[in-house]
């Protein structure tokens, strides 16, 4: 609570007028505060056709100042297409496959507020968006259908076709939202390490993503898979949380699988012998929960293409299942709706090719007056369809509550 107050109520007239304007902007959680990116001088809407050009464009760029970066997201569909998989059977919502922006202003919210900008004095148009909900949330997959998919995937696990697979369900309602209010409200309950918000003219995304998929600085690359989440309660401390994870067979084996998968994804793009588990199976504490994480590190092959890094690491394994290709094929045949941003990736690429990307989960996408919230949970043989179905609701709950 104190934390949240520190950032949100740090009153700054410039920031307030920015919030109240219709200027597109992005807020991204950083280690010791938040960065706000705005005054976009370029906006690239990604398609299968221009994505190679997008990656190549960084070869010619020079990094001089902090605003020299592209920030945005890759949708799930685009990432599947990049590794040669098609999602033909799915109903499409025609939302963008990916968008990246070039900011001219960065506002850093820390203990004080620092503005890095050429365009600070650009005139802002006031336009306040009230949240309006015009229909209740509905799920795209009802329990009987979920159970059918669950049983089908369970069979596939027995047959060795997949070792682990996640089914995505969606909640949707008709609504307009004020994403800035939603975001700060969400940060009050869950200031997750990879939280972000995008507000553009025709859509917005509000997310409390927890997982860092790529953190690249120079030739060093880190990934930090999460497998295992525990809600905080009285009497539970970090030590006890670690004990819980270590003694829980289901969490442990899921975690093991993700760690080996991420090691392999990194090995594809790193120098032999450099991929190492940097910190194994530890607990990270957040305001309302504990995460069971492992930090894996590698050193990139010289002159590797950005595209190869993205292709190897995305879509992030921990939200798909394993092995990636076969599991994605199974998923794409069973899920009848486009995942849109869900299990895509948000982050930035600096002009010096350093980058940071997350896995988009626990997110609201508001587009054309509809909000959608996706959640996924894993099919594992020692679980039940009912339990995992309810798990999806628990995961979506803090986002659904924002509409109340």
């Amino acid at each position, binding site marked *: 609570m104190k934390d949240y107050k520190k950032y949100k109520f740090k009153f700054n007239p410039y920031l307030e007028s920015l919030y109240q304007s219709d200027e597109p902007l992005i807020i991204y959680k950083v280690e010791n505060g938040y960065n706000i990116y705005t005054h976009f001088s370029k906006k690239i809407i990604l398609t299968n056709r221009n994505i190679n050009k997008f990656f190549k464009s960084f070869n010619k760029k020079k990094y001089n100042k902090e605003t020299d970066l592209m920030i945005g997201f890759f949708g799930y569909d685009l990432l599947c297409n990049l590794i040669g998989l098609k999602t033909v059977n799915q109903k499409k919502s025609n939302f963008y496959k990916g968008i990246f922006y070039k900011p001219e202003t960065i506002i850093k919210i820390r203990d004080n507020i620092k503005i890095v900008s050429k365009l600070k004095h650009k005139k802002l148009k006031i336009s306040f968006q009230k949240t309006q909900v015009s229909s209740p949330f509905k799920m795209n997959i009802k329990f009987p259908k979920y159970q059918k998919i669950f049983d089908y995937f369970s069979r596939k*696990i*027995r*047959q*060795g*076709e*997949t*070792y*682990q697979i996640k089914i995505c369900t969606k909640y949707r309602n008709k609504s307009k939202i004020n994403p800035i209010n939603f975001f700060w409200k969400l940060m009050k309950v869950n200031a997750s390490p990879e939280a972000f918000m995008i507000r553009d003219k025709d859509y917005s995304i509000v997310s409390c993503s927890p997982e860092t998929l790529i953190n690249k600085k120079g030739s060093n690359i880190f990934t930090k898979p999460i497998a295992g989440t525990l809600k905080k309660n009285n009497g539970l401390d970090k030590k006890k949380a670690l004990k819980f994870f270590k003694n829980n067979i289901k969490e*442990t*084996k*899921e*975690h*093991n*699988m993700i*760690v*080996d*998968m991420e*090691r*392999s*994804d*990194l*090995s*594809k793009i790193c120098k*032999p*012998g450099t*991929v190492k*588990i940097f910190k*194994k199976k530890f607990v990270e504490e957040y305001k309302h929960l504990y995460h069971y994480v492992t930090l894996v590190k590698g050193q990139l092959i010289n002159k590797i293409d950005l595209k190869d890094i993205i292709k190897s690491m995305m879509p992030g*394994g921990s939200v798909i299942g*394993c*092995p*990636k*290709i*076969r*599991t994605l094929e199974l998923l794409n045949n069973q899920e009848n709706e486009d995942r849109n941003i869900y299990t895509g990736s948000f982050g930035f690429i600096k002009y010096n090719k350093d980058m940071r990307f997350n896995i988009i989960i626990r997110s609201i996408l508001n587009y054309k007056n509809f909000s959608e919230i996706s959640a996924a949970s894993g099919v594992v*043989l020692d679980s039940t369809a009912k339990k995992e179905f309810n798990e999806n609701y628990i995961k979506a709950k803090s986002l659904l509550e924002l509409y109340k």
Partner: protein
Amino acid sequence: MIYVIDHQDSFTWNVVHQFRKFDKVYCSNYFNVDYKILNSSETIVLSPGPGAPKDYPQTSKIYKNFKGKKKIIGICLGYQQILHNEKGKIIQQKNIYHGYQSKVKVTNKSKIFKKNKTFKVGRYHSLKLREPFNSNSLSITMRCSKTNIPMAIEDTKNKIYGFQFHPESFLTENGDFIIKKILSN
């Protein structure tokens, strides 16, 4: 040179990096094999992967072609592929092992590892070899110390080796030692 045939697994590059500690490694998809490079390799590694051996007739063909001519090492699915081509039956098991660490014990049939030596290993498999399994050339050389499920095979005459577990997994202790032994044999 070692040729790793990838069955589109998410662990294959761990295998590649492990073998790169000992030799040059080339890796390609099972449906996209470069026969020129394959012909000039001394060792073929059949990677882990989803599904069952019968789903990969291309790999079976390569196995039959090169059996006795090159060293062949199979891991998980690759191990099952070797057995499948040696008239072994690969079946579903009751308990599924994905992401487990188990102890395996060397049987008295091994010519490479010391009898009764145990290793802690990582397992990712739904299927297993049905027993009894009889073969003139292949011997079962490691077993799970708890369930007795076959975990490794050797045919030292033809230089064919297989592991049901994953020597490349971080769950396997001494994985490099196991691979080094096989490669130097």
